[in-house]
């Protein structure tokens, strides 16, 4: 099977400081990869390099595109990359505000990607938006309300709906449950697990919360100081961590 995404030697420096260094892995269709590590370990830097938000200093991010097969997204033109960003890729930000248009109704937020790829039937767009609000457990009656009137958990679910409405083939998520209350987190995780399973999503999820990857990820990479120190199947890494840092990470969670 061809990997959906092949990451090769991604390195990003901030001046003399290392953001992430020499990261490589493959992601296969339908697979969820978790990236864990303490705050500052380079997870977001890596994710943003893969999603085209940051330009890495070295490395390749090869994506299996629908039309032209495997392409390095770092060297492709900006229009092509931005096109991927609104069709095959989706990006869920840690802070819903960064991923939503706060001045636009919930329906408009979900409909934007549909309109961006050329849908021009108001009724259809609205129906799809309403359907997606239902799937993320937001009442259809809220379709004309702005996200400013939503709770944090609802905003995050709205962001997810807005991202998934065009059926992306790869979803990047940066701490999707960060910044939410514990009970709200649990509900969101449940929802995400359902969506991942039902839609057969391929995803890369960055988190410092091992509970999130335990529930969602097939495979895991542990990062420390910008480098991957351990990688493997989620259960293997969590139940039998090999690297000293992974052991520390796992045990610190167990203590909580």
């Amino acid at each position: 099977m061809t990997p959906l995404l092949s990451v090769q030697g991604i390195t990003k420096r901030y001046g003399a400081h290392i953001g992430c260094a020499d990261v490589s892995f493959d992601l296969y269709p339908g697979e969820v990869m978790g990236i864990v590590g303490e705050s500052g370990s380079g997870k977001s830097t890596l994710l943003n390099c893969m999603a085209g938000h940051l330009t890495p200093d070295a490395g390749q991010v090869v994506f299996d595109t629908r039309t032209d097969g495997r392409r390095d997204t770092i060297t492709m033109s900006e229009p092509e990359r931005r096109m991927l960003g609104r069709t095959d890729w989706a990006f869920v930000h840690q802070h819903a505000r960064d991923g939503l248009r706060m001045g636009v109704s919930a329906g408009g937020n979900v409909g934007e990607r549909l309109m961006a790829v050329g849908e021009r039937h108001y009724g259809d767009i609205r129906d799809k938006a309403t359907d997606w609000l239902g799937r993320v457990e937001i009442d259809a009656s809220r379709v004309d309300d702005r996200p400013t009137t939503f709770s944090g958990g609802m905003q995050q679910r709205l962001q997810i709906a807005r991202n998934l409405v065009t059926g992306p083939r790869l979803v990047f998520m940066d701490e999707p449950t960060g910044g939410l209350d514990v009970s709200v987190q649990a509900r969101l995780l449940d929802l995400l697990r359902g969506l991942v399973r039902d839609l057969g999503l391929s995803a890369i999820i960055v988190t410092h919360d091992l509970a999130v990857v335990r529930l969602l990820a097939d495979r895991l990479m542990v990062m420390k100081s910008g480098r991957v120190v351990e990688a493997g199947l989620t259960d293997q890494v969590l139940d039998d961590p090999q690297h000293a840092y992974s052991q520390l990470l796992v045990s610190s969670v167990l203590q909580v």
Partner: protein
Amino acid sequence: MTEYNFAYLDEQTKRMIRRAILKGLTIPGYQVPFASREMPMPYGWGTGGVQVSAAVLTPKDTFKVIDQGADDTTNAVSIRTFFQRTAGVATTTATSDATVIQTRHRIPEEPLHEGQILVYQVPIPEPLRFLEPRESETRKMHSLEEYGLMHVKLYEDISRHGHIATSYAYPVKVEGRYVMDPSPIPKFDNPKLGDMAAIQLFGAGREQRIYALPPYTQVVSLDFEDHPFEASKADHPCGMCGATDSYLDELIIDDLGGRMFVCSDTDYCEARQAAGHKGKDAA
């Protein structure tokens, strides 16, 4: 004003503006930056249109200026006088006799013909400006053809008001490529933009942009399939000439709220009256 060059601007500047116009004509709907000059009239009062007119006028031209459709509004008078003085060109109020027509906010009712040039005064050339204030960002959106946001605005209108709530400066897509602001003409005029026999030139002085529509260009007003664009106007005949197909001004005629509607295009209305048409308010 003999100390000034023909049509006020020096030849160097006119050549620069003509280059921008030609570039605009080859990329219909694309906003070409140009080094707008300071004119002896204020920015926002037609300096872009005046510079474009100055660059295209020749001594043989016949010039017409309208503001709000009328030849005798003060700013139209002022601009016409300016070119009479600086270019000595013949002027007219008859749409069909003019070779160059400078306009603010209207397209004449009478269809234009080949060989004519319609010059629009444009205050804000950027159709995305009120969705995205940054010029650097809107230029990128145009170059990458990222126009989803424009439809989000129309979507929001319908979800809130039941209709697209844009009644003038209604955005259009040109030849399936650039989204363009047609200047603040009422949307009633939008259908005239497309497939027009005349050349249409748009000048924004303060914002330093020129754009253009060559003759017979495809121009489509943005809409949704199930909320199609509608060119609307007040649902009355003209009180003076009885026309039912022209855009109307609403006048308040007494302090009891009495109103009447007359053609905003004064030349059109007068020509109809001269031909014997009569509205209910005519003498």
